[in-house]
């Protein structure tokens, strides 16, 4: 009986979800567009310091210039590219590493599972930024060390989620049915476990994307990210902070861009959640 009541209260906000998804795609789309265009065309050369210092927005420089005379809009577009690269690469690293470890823990004997889980818990307890700083201290500040650091930190969260989702699936009768049908471990993992955890995992990874972008922005803000001209939005924020009162656009623009991207990705994740498990609804 309670299943019916649950089903009914889920159906109501469906229209709201479609709006959320639409907004998310829109926001993210704008940033993706900026990044794609930046691959072929930029308004100015990134190292061109011909514009006046800290000029306000004009027809020539849509967002004005920074303290060295570089066009801000150009830097914003490059920052979009960086943000998307970091987001995608670190989530990909976290996904591959995290799912592998999570699945191992899910299938492992209790002692191995316990050790893995304890290790994961320790990693998760560490602030991402601290871990990232550790990696960067070893590897030096660069885009790839940022990706490595963020990816490693996130992989622990992905691993823990994968482990829990996989264990839940492993308790279902269709897994036993697969075993009695002669399917062996690789088949069970690829054809039964992964397809069933993928939707929830996918939503989580989408949310991690936003977190990764913010983490990189924080690293860059602290001076630990990629240096200019491959500057990310975080770096732009750091450079603009001294002049935020006299030339506010320099700080507002990258800030808004960050918000738009992260919000957009989170909205997509939220909207996807509705599509994540419609097939599991029981129709009695």
């Amino acid at each position: 009986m309670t299943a019916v009541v649950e089903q009914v209260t889920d159906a109501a906000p469906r229209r709201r979800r479609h709006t959320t998804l639409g907004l998310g795609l829109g926001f993210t789309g704008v940033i993706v567009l900026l990044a794609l265009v930046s691959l072929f065309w930029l308004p100015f050369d990134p190292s061109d310091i011909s514009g006046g210092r800290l000029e306000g927005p004009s027809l020539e420089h849509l967002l004005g210039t920074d303290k060295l005379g570089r066009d801000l809009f150009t830097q914003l577009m490059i920052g979009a590219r960086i943000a998307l690269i970091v987001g995608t690469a670190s989530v990909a690293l976290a996904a591959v590493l995290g799912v592998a470890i999570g699945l191992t823990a899910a299938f492992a004997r209790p002692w191995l599972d316990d050790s893995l889980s304890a290790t994961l818990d320790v990693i998760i307890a560490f602030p991402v930024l601290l871990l990232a700083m550790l990696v960067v201290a070893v590897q030096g500040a660069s885009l790839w060390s940022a990706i490595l650091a963020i990816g490693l930190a996130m992989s622990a969260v992905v691993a823990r989620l994968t482990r829990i989702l996989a264990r839940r699936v492993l308790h279902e009768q269709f897994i036993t049915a697969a075993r009695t049908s002669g399917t062996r471990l690789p088949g069970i993992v690829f054809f039964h476990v992964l397809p069933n955890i993928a939707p929830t995992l996918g939503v989580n990874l989408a949310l991690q994307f936003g977190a990764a972008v913010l983490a990189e922005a924080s690293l860059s803000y602290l001076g630990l990210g990629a240096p200019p001209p491959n500057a990310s939005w975080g770096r732009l924020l750091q450079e603009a902070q001294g002049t935020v009162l006299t030339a506010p656009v320099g700080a507002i623009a990258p800030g808004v861009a960050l918000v738009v991207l992260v919000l957009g990705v989170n909205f997509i994740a939220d909207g996807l959640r509705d599509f994540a498990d419609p097939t599991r609804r029981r129709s009695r």
Partner: protein
Amino acid sequence: MTALLELHDARFAYGRRTVIDDVTLGVSAGQALGLVGESGAGKSTIFSLLLGLAAPHAGAVLFDGAPLDRRDRRMMRRFRTEVQTVFQDPYSSLDPRQRIDRIVGEPLRSLGIARGEQAQQSVADAVRSVGLDADALHRYPHEFSGGQRQRIAIARAIVSKPRVLLADEPVSALDVTTRIQVIELLAHLRAETGMALVMVSHDLSAVAALCERTVVLQGGRVVEEGATRDILDAPTIAYTRTLVSAIPRLPREA
């Protein structure tokens, strides 16, 4: 007649708790055996042992007279082809993310029994013989009712043309009207294919409808066995008598 599948003096324990002890039972070709008992009697454990999902801590599982060696791949392949199963919960025993044709065809793929065209044909035949239309093949489990899902599970169980079907409470989760249909389907399939049946159930009426012989379990031991008719009409031990008299009966027709 040698037994097709049997347990011999089997014992199984979880840690220090013995779940079943000294259990001997078996089914021969074409026979139907009911395993009856209340919760904690050890039915599920026996079911797992007969399915080769676990090994007994003492005693043996015998398949065609030979001890079942779970590490012997060839033997296990033959075992899984010839011993198939239907589970209790039709809402949990089908992978919600797979289409029916993939679900029913899984034994054929995993056991290397058939591929491609031939496999498709076998799957279509199996689905038809459980009374479902061909268009069911391209649908997903959530589009079907409990009774239909159980039929799909039965189709998956018979696609490899097994000699023994192990059924764990196959009708307990179903509505009364569907229950009788699935029971009739199982009886019909048995008659057609000569398949043996081992059915675990707490519901004696389902066992009575399908199984000529019954084993009664209590506290992990076999306390009574024999022809189902004899157990129902003249149970010899107190526990069985209590069990039989506790079954809710419809008032006699006027």
